[in-house]
């Protein structure tokens, strides 16, 4: 155990952060008990997506941008479709819109169950992985896998497969299911609803490391529904701009020594996206079943103050989307046509949707044939990165008395609380260069 002294300096370095999507490193320098440097570095290989979509047709862009992330492909497809539908002024049939919510619900259930059980729970329970966890608590891991399977089944039904689904196009879908096909999933979803309740009760018993701070939560906000792919971009401290107007409230900036751009508010401040932000900004719009469950576990304040409690917000959203999926299935009537036709035109528009990790914002400019002239993609992890580093700086002093390995694990756990998708964060990162 080391004690602090006038010359005491420690550094924590994690060369490859595990149980996250993609490749990143964590580096923290502590001097005299104060954190002098906290960096989450991203070293994923660049894949040039914003250039790869130039000259491509909108429906091709939907398939190409899905390949940015195998864990949240629907988020990329929906954000891209929204931007093009905004440019071409396409009206979406309400049943088609409901099916898009259902497809996205599948992605939430899959992605959140993956994170809660396979990536994050091992931290709370002291294991290196869910496979190790299963050796002692097999039923727990099996419950997580069963939930994940239902999410994947929903995506496979609506999209053909859960990784890179093939059904979404500008204006709607290539193909929509029959009512009986959706109803066949009902028993599995009803079972998942029970398992989601159990998941919430399970994570509510976890011990989160004590850590509280005020934070700016940014999410979408819709008058009538839990935030997903429509509404306005809002914060809990007064930001309120149109869904296409991300640039009116936020900007990207380059930070030396990291490979990713960070997003900030226009006044240069950090903010947090994702499940904790949505649950805080839109608690009243959760499905009544999820609202009751939140009242039962009583963690709303903790979710708003302590980033480690994002695991409860994620479990709550699994429950919400199981309940909403059942309602969508019960109310479903196949639309008259799977997609609305559209006419290409020159234009530009931005659109965002709530990926499981937070707002994913796309902006496209098209030519007269509708082909892409330029693209900007702002993934959630590059927006959360500033807040992750701010949290690391604020949290690190609390773990300095711990043994080095344990302290490092706590810092990694904090990073994982944001469910960072480093594969996503790397590939875009547009910035404006001043001068040549």
């Amino acid at each position, binding site marked *: 155990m080391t004690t602090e002294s006038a010359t005491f300096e420690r550094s924590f370095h994690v060369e490859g952060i*595990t*149980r996250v999507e*993609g*490749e990143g490193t964590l580096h923290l320098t502590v001097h005299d008990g104060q954190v002098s440097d906290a960096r989450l570095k991203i*070293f*994923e*290989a*660049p*894949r*040039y997506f914003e*250039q*790869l*979509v*130039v*000259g*491509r*047709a909108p429906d*091709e862009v939907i398939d*190409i941008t899905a*390949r*940015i*992330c*195998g*864990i949240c*492909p629907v988020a990329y497809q929906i954000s891209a479709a929204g931007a093009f539908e905004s440019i071409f002024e396409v009206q979406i049939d309400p049943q088609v819109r409901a099916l898009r919510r259902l497809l996205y619900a599948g992605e939430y259930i899959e992605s959140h169950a993956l994170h809660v059980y*396979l990536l994050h729970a*091992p931290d709370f329970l002291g294991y*290196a*992985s*869910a*496979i*190790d966890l*299963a050796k002692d608590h*097999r039923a727990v891991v*099996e419950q997580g*896998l*069963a939930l994940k*399977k239902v999410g*994947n089944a929903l995506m496979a039904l609506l999209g*053909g*497969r859960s*990784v*890179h689904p*093939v059904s979404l*196009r500008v204006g709607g879908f*290539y*193909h929509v299911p029959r009512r009986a096909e959706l109803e066949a999933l009902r028993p599995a979803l009803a079972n998942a609803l029970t398992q989601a309740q159990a998941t919430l009760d399970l994570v509510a018993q976890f011990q989160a490391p004590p850590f509280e701070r005020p934070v700016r939560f940014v999410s979408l906000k819709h008058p009538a529904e839990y935030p997903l792919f429509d509404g306005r971009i809002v914060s809990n401290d007064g930001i309120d701009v149109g869904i296409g107007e991300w640039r009116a409230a936020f900007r*990207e900036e*380059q930070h030396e020594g990291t*490979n990713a*751009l960070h997003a900030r508010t226009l006044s240069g401040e950090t903010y947090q996206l994702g499940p904790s932000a949505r649950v805080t900004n839109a608690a009243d719009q959760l499905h009544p079943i999820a609202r009751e469950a939140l009242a039962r576990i009583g963690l709303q304040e903790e979710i708003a103050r302590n980033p480690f409690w994002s695991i409860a917000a994620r479990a709550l959203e699994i429950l919400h989307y199981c309940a909403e999926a059942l309602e969508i299935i019960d109310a479903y009537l196949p639309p008259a046509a799977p997609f609305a036709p559209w006419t290409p035109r020159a234009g530009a528009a931005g659109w965002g949707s709530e990926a499981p990790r937070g707002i994913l914002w796309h902006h496209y400019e098209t030519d007269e044939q509708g*082909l892409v002239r*330029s693209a900007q993609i702002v993934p959630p992890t590059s927006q959360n990165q500033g807040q992750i580093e701010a949290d690391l700086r604020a949290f690190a002093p609390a773990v300095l008395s711990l043994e080095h390995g344990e302290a490092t694990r706590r810092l990694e756990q904090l990073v994982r609380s944001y469910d960072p998708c480093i*594969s996503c964060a790397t*590939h875009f*990162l*547009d*910035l*404006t*260069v001043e001068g040549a």
Partner: protein
Amino acid sequence: MIRAATTPHPRLGVVKLASCDGCQLTLLNLEDELLAIAERLDIVEFPEATSHRSNGPYDVVLVEGSVSTPEQLEQIHEVRREAKLLVTIGACATAGGIQALRNFADHDAFRAAVYAHPEYIESLATAQPVADYVKVDAELRGCPINAAQLVELVTALLTGRRPNLPDEAVCAACKRAGRVCVMVAQGIPCLGPVTMTGCGALCPGYSRGCYGCFGPREQANVSSLSRQFISLGRSPQEAGRLFAGFTGYAEPYRDAIVELGGLPGASLAGERAHRAMGAGVNAEGKS
């Protein structure tokens, strides 16, 4: 060549190069088999799923992603040295992936179009399939790979037999499924005649044309299919874009793209680079 795993608990590694994580996610998506697989195989390296790390040796290593940076080039040689069997999984590892479309462009121009300081970008001129650099013992194609094929591969590895993987066109699987041909009936361009199946002819089942996730099958007649696309009323550029997908760098799709006039973004990249270098405009951060 596949050999029987000699140890009772073969050491499995899962490593990632330039990719989206979707193929390794397919392993985690084997919800019914994952825990059983973990009992038969010792998963020693799989950073997305476990904090245990190992630099080898491995009895089997699954490699996702294409080789596109100098570090990845070093890494793949190191992984090869440590692995008894190296299996590439997915379109990036087996064909270069979507990022290999940059191979059609002048890389310096492409990079300058996207990055403010291209000299900082540690990126090879091309994104290449793994087999271009090291010996590959088996491959699973697809964008993403097919879960049933992954189970078949793992089972074959554990029992020491050849994996039984399909070797026919999407068209054949589509006909067997009793689907109406989207190209004949609706005039929708479809890569089914020249593409290896593995998806079970997914896209025609969703009323759209195949877009080539599993790459070209042997002796694919791409010129004939290009002419068919043009006779359906597509311009050569549109026809070229149909081949320029997730396996577009694989022969003979690659030749079809060049024959049909090259990649749309490639010529634009040159123009934009010119502009960027002159005026210092919108460019991507050092990624």
